[in-house]
């Protein structure tokens, strides 16, 4: 039967087409680039990112006194897909942009794990409000909070309005 001329005739060899498609797919799987393309088409690829967050964000203080200890809890979550060494810096920035490092530490965080940091800072900005920052050198993420610092003479006054305790 003449398949191409007569639309009424059934396609007799769909298996041949299927075989060609199977061979092409098989051939594409031989090469790493081909496998990568199939992976992109078929499976969800993980997203790589790092999360930096205060653990109890609603408890961050809005005012304090100069050099008074402010407890800080923050987390660094590694979603980069591999173990990563994270170094954090705690800094204070005054309204003029003057920056001082208050403390620093580092740790290796395995993929998918979270490093919970329990520390404290004693900001001493000369100008208020003082911004206390947590930055990860080598990463873009940073978190910070503003705190109005009262002069040390007010030491006897009530302490931080809202502590950042656990």
């Amino acid at each position, binding site marked *: 039967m003449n398949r191409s001329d007569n639309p*009424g005739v059934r396609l007799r060899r769909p298996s041949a087409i299927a075989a060609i498609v199977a061979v092409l797919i098989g051939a594409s799987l031989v090469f790493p680039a081909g496998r990568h393309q199939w992976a992109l088409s078929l499976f969800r*690829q993980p997203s790589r*990112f790092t*999360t930096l*967050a205060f653990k109890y964000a609603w408890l961050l203080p809005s005012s304090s006194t100069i050099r008074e200890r402010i407890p800080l809890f923050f987390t660094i979550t590694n979603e980069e897909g591999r173990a990563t060494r994270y170094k954090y810096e705690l800094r204070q920035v005054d309204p003029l942009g003057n920056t001082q490092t208050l403390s620093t530490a580092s740790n290796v965080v395995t993929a998918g794990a979270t490093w919970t940091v329990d520390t404290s800072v004693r900001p001493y900005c000369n100008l208020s409000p003082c911004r206390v920052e947590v930055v990860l050198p080598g990463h873009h993420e940073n978190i910070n909070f503003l705190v109005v610092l009262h002069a040390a003479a007010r030491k006897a006054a009530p302490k931080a309005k809202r502590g950042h305790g656990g």
Partner: protein
Amino acid sequence: MAEATRQEILPAEPHTARGWRGYPWPEIAGCGLALIVNVLALTGVGVPFLGPALGFCFLIVLPVYLIATTSFLAGTSQAERLGYSLACVLGALMLGGLAADLILPFAGVSRPLDPVPVVLLADLLLAGCYLLRRRFPGQALTWTQLNRVRHAVRARETRLIGASALVVVLAVLGANRLNNGAGDQVSLAALAVAVLTAGFLLWWRNEVREIATLVTLYLLSLGLLLMTSLRGWYVTGHDIQTEYQVFQLTQAHGSWQIGAFHNAYNACLSITILPTVLGDVLRVDGPYIYKLFFQLLFAACPVLVYTIARRYWPVPVAMLAALYFIGFPTFFTDMPFINRQEVGLIFVCVAVLLITNESWSVRTRRLAFIAACVGVEISHYSSMYIFLGILAVAWAVRAIMRVPHQVRPVKAAHAEPPPWASPVRIVGIGSLLAVAVVTIGWGFLATQSAGAVLSDASASISGLLGHSAGTRSGNVGYSLLFGKTQTSQQVLNDYNASILKLRAATAHETSYLETAGVASHDQVKALAEPLLPLTGAGHLLADAGVPVAGVNTAIRLAAAYGEQVFVAAGVIAFLVVRRVRRQVGWEFFCLCLGCLVVLGAVTVLPDLSVDYGILRVFQESLIVLAPVLVAGSIAIFRAFGEAWAPKLAAALCVGFLISTTGLLPQVLGDYPAQLSLNNSGPYYNDYYVHPQEAAGTQWLSSQLGVLPSGLQATHATNRFLFTSPGTVTGKQFVEDAFPSLLRQHAWVILDYSILHGGLASVSYDGDIIPYKYPVRVLSQNKNLVYDNGGMEIYR
């Protein structure tokens, strides 16, 4: 023709034909399927891919098959039977779930929509369908028939079905690739194959049997829907965010309670009980109930549109009608995000099929029509209001047309009364009242969720009388009736003014950021939507002096205006040419007029285009108007000769399809990016949920003071509702983070689009206006408490 085809493909055989081991195979397969799905659902064992597929067959496919093969539906075409039985099954699942929800608590079952009661309900439904078919047997499907169908398939039919199946595969792979950050090549290939398949379907229209046409249309529709619905690994889209919230609310409570979230969304059983039932049986991740399984259902809608058109028109017109329905941009860019309307439109199609089905008795049709309207009402309130409006106008038009014949009765006793003088009609005053009672009963009395319709009507009338300004969506700019709309900056200014009023009114109870008002008033400017860069092909055209952006816009406008002109031409042809009018019957003609009047009302009356969406109303109207549109285009092209008219109409339809599906703008560039083809563009910025945003939302749900109203965000704010079982509530509220609206103590989300493109957007009066977000207002005044590179949260 449909009946002839059926006879050709499925020659009559006694239904008692026995298969393997002397038993009819459907019963064996059905029992096996039910057993496997029961075990999987009750034990909670998840089998990837296979489990959900078997569950869908058990819950939807098998009951649909059983109902479609009863003798009740004998004498109707295959697609019509599919529509009726699909509506029956969807209605039974929603109303059965509702009955279980209301009755089982009295029997001590506090969570009636948990997997065990739901699987038992599904078993009852399946058993009921089986007994119904056993009592009223129709023509069953046997191995012999399947083999005959397989051997009877023609080469061109195989190619069309194969190509349209390829569209589905490419659409899924293309969406996955885009979600993984890869390019648009595969999605573009899917669109190209879809357009080519549509072209060949029209070309080979005389050599392709109806069943192959129906399968091709279904697969093409499914491919286009999946290209959009599968974008993103999370819930992506506008309305779907709240739809997902009410679904999760129902699933988390194990019951549907309108009091848990007094909202019109929660009154739609199509997005509360139906997805919960599907989720309990299919055991698939919640978002994929909407992303995949609702699209599998809605892809049947164009098939039903084709079937409606085939009532009165030949195959080419019906094909073009279905293609216009599929090619209307709302179909594949918005409908996958409005799942309640998807289910509602299936019932609307079935209702129109019943109105025009002259092979059944009037009483049966009326009862079935009212049942279909119940389905529309419990699925989607807006679709019901629009449909009720169409029915009311259709009834009024026919009543007016009958007046002259009642005044001057037919003199000759033996003379046949003209069709419009006939007292028999489906959309009579009784049916209309029954539908109105259903609408009022469900919307106003049972769920008390329809208050918005009254306020809309009041605002609309007030605006019409000039008592209030009234607003119109920017989309009415595509209308021939009302072309002039506000500029983006005017809308943004209006929004800002309304916020400043709100600030003044609530200043005593809420503390706003002090600098925010100044920042928004002086600095927030509306921006134009960013365009795709010119492609190689676009550069070639641009170098030849062709303005690519102008070409893209001109073709889109030509499609928008052209479709309206064609509809008008089609209706005028009805009015002028008696032969054409007689061809369709008065009831259908009146429905067409009803659609036109409702479309005109939504366009012209203030506020309606904002609340109901002019494009969505047009999509619903196309169920009836699509064949009229095609008839109108053929009538206009008749100036080029009888032979050329249908060819030109078909060429124009395919041409519009190339543009409206996004193929041409994607190939040329210089046009706003479409979500199904790009990782950019307005919908991507507004609705796409990134993994970082999902992680941020999850973190936020663990913080104190976020709910119920302490959260602000830009773009589609409902993306950030908490929907996990432990946190979902009906009392969440995410306020817009427009700069002048920022509150002192609220949590404020800066999403991926702001961080990576600086663009925010505001949704106001049905328009989405992009603007540059002044991030400094936040960074200078609030604490940055969360940052993952894709989402920042301030407090």
